[in-house]
Each structure stands twice: as C-alpha cells, then as structure tokens.
C-alpha cells in the first residue's frame, strides 16, 4: 500500500498553496443576495461548485467575491466549504480529473443507480411512491424561484406578525 501511494504521489501534480479564504458553494439551492439575511434582494443563483473568496462574515452570512465573474454579494456561510472538502460535482472539465474523482466519491454506491435498482425491485407500489415523492419535491411551483419564494414568505410573515413584524423585538 505505501509503495502504491508513493508511486501515485510522484505521478500526480502537486497542488499550489491553498488560499485560506477560498471556498466552494456546496449546495444546489443557494443564492447570492445583496445583504446578510434571507430577506435581501437576490442577485443570482449560486451554482454548486462556484469558487468564491470570503471577504468577511456577518451573522450566518459570508460576504464573498465570485471568482468566475466580477460579483461581490452575500451567501449563507453554511453553503460554503473549503475546496478540499468539496465532493459533489460529478465532472468539472475545467478543473480536471481531481474533481471528477471527488464527484465519484460523493455519490459512490448510494446514488441514482442504487435507487433505480431498489425501485425496480419494489413493484408498482414503490414506483408510485417515488413518483409521488418527485411530485411533492417539485411543489410549490415557485419553490426554485428564490425571489418569488422570499416575496411569498415576507407576505406570510407580515400577515402573521412574524419576524420584523413581531411585536417583540
């Protein structure tokens, strides 16, 4: 084993010194927003795997600079991980095979193939339950539209005297 690792270490290119402020977006549903809270206006959807530099933190939000374009915005700190801990994306041709290998690890064994196999073994009832599941996950129709979701949430909170409308500060 040690000999194997030694040979591979020699074969693989060495990583440059890591940037301590570098992070990657680690969830699929995060958004860049103008301020450090969910009520702030959206800037744009964050892509899983986006490279950012953290400029500072305010509460649960990080102020970040997006590397791929000239954009500075806020994002939930919990959506970010150090690059070496990013193991989601299946392929990333721009960054080479290392990330592909990480992606393989992220989904290995327990993945769509496993679900398909398990589903096929369960008969019509199981198949229907997965269909119902997917239908549920796609409701409400505006769920993936952050601006619409936040607008609806603000309206709901106002009606119910919640959040900034609460009598208790």
């Amino acid at each position, binding site marked *: *084993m040690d000999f*194997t690792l030694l040979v*591979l270490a020699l074969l*693989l290119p060495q990583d440059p010194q890591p940037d301590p402020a570098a992070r990657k977006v*680690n*969830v*699929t*549903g*995060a958004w860049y927003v103008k301020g450090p*809270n*969910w009520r702030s206006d959206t800037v744009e959807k964050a892509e899983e795997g986006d490279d950012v530099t953290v400029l500072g933190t305010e509460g*649960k939000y990080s102020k970040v600079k997006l590397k791929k374009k000239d954009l500075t915005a806020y994002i*939930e700190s*919990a959506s970010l991980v150090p690059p070496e801990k990013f*193991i*989601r994306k299946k392929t990333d041709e721009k960054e080479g095979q290392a990330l*592909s*290998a990480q992606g*393989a*690890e*992220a*989904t*290995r*064994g*327990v*993945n769509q*193939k*496993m*679900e*398909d*196999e*398990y589903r096929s*073994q*369960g008969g019509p*009832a*199981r198949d*229907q*339950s*997965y269909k*119902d*599941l997917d*239908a*549920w*996950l796609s*409701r*409400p129709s505006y*769920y993936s539209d952050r601006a619409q979701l936040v607008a609806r*949430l603000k309206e*709901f*909170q106002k*009606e*119910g*005297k*919640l*959040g*900034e409308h*609460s*009598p*208790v*500060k």
Partner: protein
Amino acid sequence: MTQMRTWIAVFLGLAAVGCGGSATLTESQEYFMARGVAALAIEKDHLWTDEKVEEYLMLIGLSIAFESDRPDTWKGYHFAVLNTEEVNAFAAPSGFIFVTKGALRSMNNEDELAGVLAHEVAHVNLRHPELAAQRAAQDSGLMEGVKLLAGAADVAGTVLSIFGTRQAANEMQVAKDYAPAFGKSIVDGLKSYKLGYSRDEELAADKMAVEFVTRPGVGYDPNAFRAFISRLPAKADSYGTHPGLEGRLQAIDDEIKKHKAAPVDAERTKRFLAMKAGLGQ
C-alpha cells in the same frame, strides 16, 4: 507504455483490496437515503396532497429554517403531510420533514405547529437524521458496498481514464448486490426517525426549537410548543423513545425563561384553523 499500464493496474488492484475507503455517507448519499425513506413513508401512509396545506407548512417551516444555523440543505428543506391519524412528526436526512394529519388535528394554533416544525428543523441542524442514516447504512451492510467501490476509486479516478468504464460496471454490480441492504437501511432509518432519537438528542432538539421560534427573525410563542408537548400521552407510541414528559417540559421551561416570547397571534390562529378545517373530519 503497456508495461506502465500493467504496473498501474497492479497498484489499483492492491489499492482496491487494501483501502477501506470512506466510512461516512456524503450529503449526496444521504440525499438518496432520504429519498428512499420518504418514498417508503409515502408508500405506507400516502401524502395529504392539499397544495394549500403543503404551502402553509412550507412557509412556517422555512420561516424557521432560514433563521436557523443550517438555513439550507443540499437540495433544500421540504415539508409534507402524511395522510395518517397517527400523531407524529419526523425529519429524514437532507431536510425532508413530515407531519401527520393526526398531529395537525391535535394542534390548536399555528404556534404549536411552528414549535413542532422547529423541533424537526433542530434535528436537521444537529444532523441527527444523518447520524441515524449512517448507523442504518452501517448495520444493514450497505457501507460494505460503498467501501468496495471507494477502495478502488480512491486511487483510480485520477490515473487511468479506462478505469471509468470499470468503475461504472462496478457501480452497476454494487447496485444489484446491495439494493436489499439499501432497502433494509431505509426501513431501519424510517423506523428510527418515527420512534425518535435518544433522550439527549430529543432534549437538545426541544431546547433548540425554543431558541429558533424566539429568534428575532421568527417570533412564535414557545409556550405553544410546550402546550402541545404537555398534551402528548406519556407513553405515546409515536414518541415512545422520547424522554419522559416531565423531563421534557422542565427542559423546555428552563429554555423559555432565557428568551423573549411573543404571544400567540389571533391572525395566525385564524389561518391555522382555516387550514385545519380543510383536513376534514
């Protein structure tokens, strides 16, 4: 070049045998476990698919989750009603949160529902469902399949492009061989989510629920959560492994004292009762 490939193939073979690989589930793997658990819960009890009720649950749930310490999960929080008269609520991994129709019927106002959802969001924040999924995957033997693949691919992914084909083939075989173990981990996972967690985990979720609902960005009355918990039968099946009622109430009381509590609001109760009326008799 051929000789080089032969050597590398030998190394890969050794690595596959020698490496244990990762023994923990990634969030992606947890997501597929969560989908299995959710599908099984739906197969058993079916969803109550009133979109207005679902949206109402989501709006309360997200009001809390967005202000929690884990505002997002890999694919986001989702809230659903299970069409059963059993009184229960539970969280699966990845932020899939279920409340039963029986539980909704037994509540008196929106603040009680918010407290219950906050308790489940707290479990997600504390990663209790993920830890239970991990245990279920370990006990069912599912992790053996993951490790088999991990041992090979730790080394292979960066070296030989031809290995991609072999990896895919292995994935197919593992899916076939380990689908029963996947199924068992789903059954065991759902059972543990529905029964509840350890006493310490439940108490931690109770305290965190009180904290979440009283955060400035939320503003529900934590006393409503206490009121709901106090009405639970001492030995209800649905909360069978939850801590004793007295202990829970005492811990909740202690936590409530630390926070400013907003009163139950009439408008909120009105919309809750409208939702509840839609559940039928």
